[in-house]
């Protein structure tokens, strides 16, 4: 007789037969040096999920299913290879530990009045970054809602990203309004044109554009915050944003690496996504370091130290673009798709050299 049956006999007032229906029992996940992490509870059947999810009711992975549970279903992402990445649980826990507050962790009191051209440039760049972070907040949210909870580890990472992007939207808005300036003109480059991040119909497609390419370019900018910042508040702002952005890029890289290792049949398809990403993002208006955009001019003014030092600023900007490309190439190589740079498929380096010379 099971323990539940014994207990049921002891308690006649309510049906307790459910006590016999459960997932794997006897689990003792133990906290380690970093506390009780998601990785610590990936034990036994609660560990890695199946290659394909049949979870149409939203039940927690490993919970016992009910035959009569209502389907909430409709998940677009139901196969592991569509969204998985190794070590998602570590990324998520790191995100939780490294949350920060734009209200109190940026020393706003250290902003002092700046020359008008510099302040305008900071505000134009801040307006751009606010707008760009809108994309990065909206798009992962849509994918979260349409991914089965059986793959909750990547979903948790995306939820952390939505939170991070929300904070980025707000910190740049704060910068624009903290020092006698204001918001300036939008770029319009985040609208839904063909090939943009919004219109991706596959998660890997979206991730290649958002994480590998778009956020990769922005990460380079944030890491160079020392060059664009004129006070400790701005330095802190870029440093904290860079920390978050690095996790988002890491998500994209690790997912792409997983695809490279487990989905050879999709290799050519993913190369096409990278073709498109390289065309759209690094050469287009969503890159603040791109050519002849409002934000690139603003950036050149900041890098040079003023409108009158624009040319010097542009030279630094070109160096930044070069670095963006170098980091992108390194990133893609690490995912296992680097052959595109060796076999002539990627036009990136050629395009970059052409634009740099223009």
């Amino acid at each position: 007789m099971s323990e539940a049956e014994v207990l049921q006999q002891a308690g006649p007032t309510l049906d307790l037969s459910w006590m016999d229906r459960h997932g794997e029992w006897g689990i003792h996940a133990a906290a380690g040096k970093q506390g009780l992490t998601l990785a610590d509870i990936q034990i036994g059947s609660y560990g890695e999920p199946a290659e394909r999810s049949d979870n149409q009711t939203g039940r927690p992975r490993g919970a016992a299913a009910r035959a009569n549970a209502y389907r909430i279903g409709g998940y677009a992402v139901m196969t592991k290879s569509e969204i998985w990445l190794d070590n998602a649980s570590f990324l998520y826990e790191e995100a939780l530990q490294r949350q920060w507050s734009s209200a109190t962790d940026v020393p706003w009191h250290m902003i002092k009045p700046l020359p008008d051209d510099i302040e305008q440039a900071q505000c134009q760049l801040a307006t751009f970054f606010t707008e760009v972070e809108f994309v990065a907040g909206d798009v992962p949210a849509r994918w979260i809602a349409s991914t089965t909870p059986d793959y909750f580890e990547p979903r948790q990472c995306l939820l952390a990203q939505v939170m991070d992007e929300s904070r980025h939207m707000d910190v740049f808005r704060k910068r624009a309004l903290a020092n006698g300036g204001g918001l300036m003109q939008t770029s319009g480059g985040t609208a839904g044109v063909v090939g943009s991040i919004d219109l991706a119909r596959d998660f890997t497609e979206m991730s290649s554009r958002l994480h590998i390419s778009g956020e990769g370019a922005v990460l380079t900018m944030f890491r160079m915050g020392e060059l664009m910042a004129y006070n400790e508040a701005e330095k802190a702002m870029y440093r904290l944003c860079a920390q978050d952005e690095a996790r988002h890029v890491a998500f994209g890289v690790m997912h792409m690496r997983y695809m490279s290792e487990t989905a050879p049949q999709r290799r050519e398809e993913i190369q096409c996504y990278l073709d498109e990403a390289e065309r759209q993002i690094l050469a287009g208006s969503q890159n603040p370091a791109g050519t002849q955009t409002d934000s690139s001019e603003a950036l050149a003014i900041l890098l040079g130290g003023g409108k009158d030092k624009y040319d010097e600023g542009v030279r630094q900007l070109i160096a930044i673009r070069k670095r963006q490309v170098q980091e992108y190439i390194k990133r893609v190589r690490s995912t296992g798709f680097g052959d595109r740079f060796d076999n002539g498929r990627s036009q990136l380096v050629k395009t970059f050299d052409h634009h740099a010379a223009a």
Partner: protein
Amino acid sequence: MTDKPASPAPTGAADAPPSPTAQVSAPNLRWMGKSRQWGTRVKPGKHGLRLGDLNVGIYGEVPPVWTDQTRAPRGAMSRRGVPPLGYAVRDKVDLWADSAADMYEEAIQRRWAPAVDIPWETVQPLPYDVERAICQVCTELSQYANADVESVTYWQSQMAYGYHEIKQFLATVSFDAARHMEVFRKRALCNGGGLGLEGPGEVNRMILESRGGWTEAVLYLLVLRGLFTQTMYRYLERYAHSDAERTIFGRCLQDKARHLTYGIDHLRYAVNHQDDQNLILTQLCIIGERVLVRELKDTVLRGALAIVFGDGVAGLDAGLRIVDRMMSDYVTRYLATMKWLGVERTTLFPEELTAYLKTPNARSAS
């Protein structure tokens, strides 16, 4: 695991810039001077520099309808000819709550991490029946949190950026829900137990299938079911078997209270700014309450709670009386909230819920 910088932040010179003689195109600088409101200087206060503090002048003008279909930040100069993005939720009355901006900042300030902010070492071995019951409760609460995640992220991505305060607050709500999903899973897997049986899911489905818009989803997710979850958290904190559980439910209670505050604040705004919204909400309540009542007939959660409260199957009867008291608290609070909102709930209110108000241990209305 993160993408570490390849080298310290370089100076321009160290990064091999192109030849100083390279030709640089003259800038057009058309963007300079283009601002709807220049000269804004918001200073940090006791709370630091908060989102709500930025609502000065044009930046604080929140229109009743946001017609811009791009990602233009509120107050920025728009660019003509930008293709629209098709945000579905563009009317202030469909999402607004005055408290959202401040609660966004509060959510960030009052954050916690289940891995390290729960004293997991205080979880002690429990008798099988109690552990099984706790694991069952955690399984169902984790599933509720999943519905929160899926509903909130779906709607959040549909909201126009003219109401960025709401979108940003909802980002904290979905992040809180992620944390709740995680912490209940961790509790179920740390003490010799495992996950239990999934919930019936009818209320989850109702929440996720809210076709009438975000306001309908708010009513079901954050008020009808949110108050129920909140009440459970209170009782689970009271009848916790360890400091770990007490902390879990105490922390979740804080988060849920913010969600409820937004939900009620938004419904109040909707009722006050839209004719007959209170009548629509009444109809939605009638439908939603019936679904809730059907789900409450499922004996699994009721039994599990009773075992937790009664400290075992042997205390089942005492536990069931506590469950009934919990339900009477829930119904009382729900009705008081609806009344305060001006949403009538005397017509067609389910007898099954009214019955809880008449249980011997029900509180008198205060």
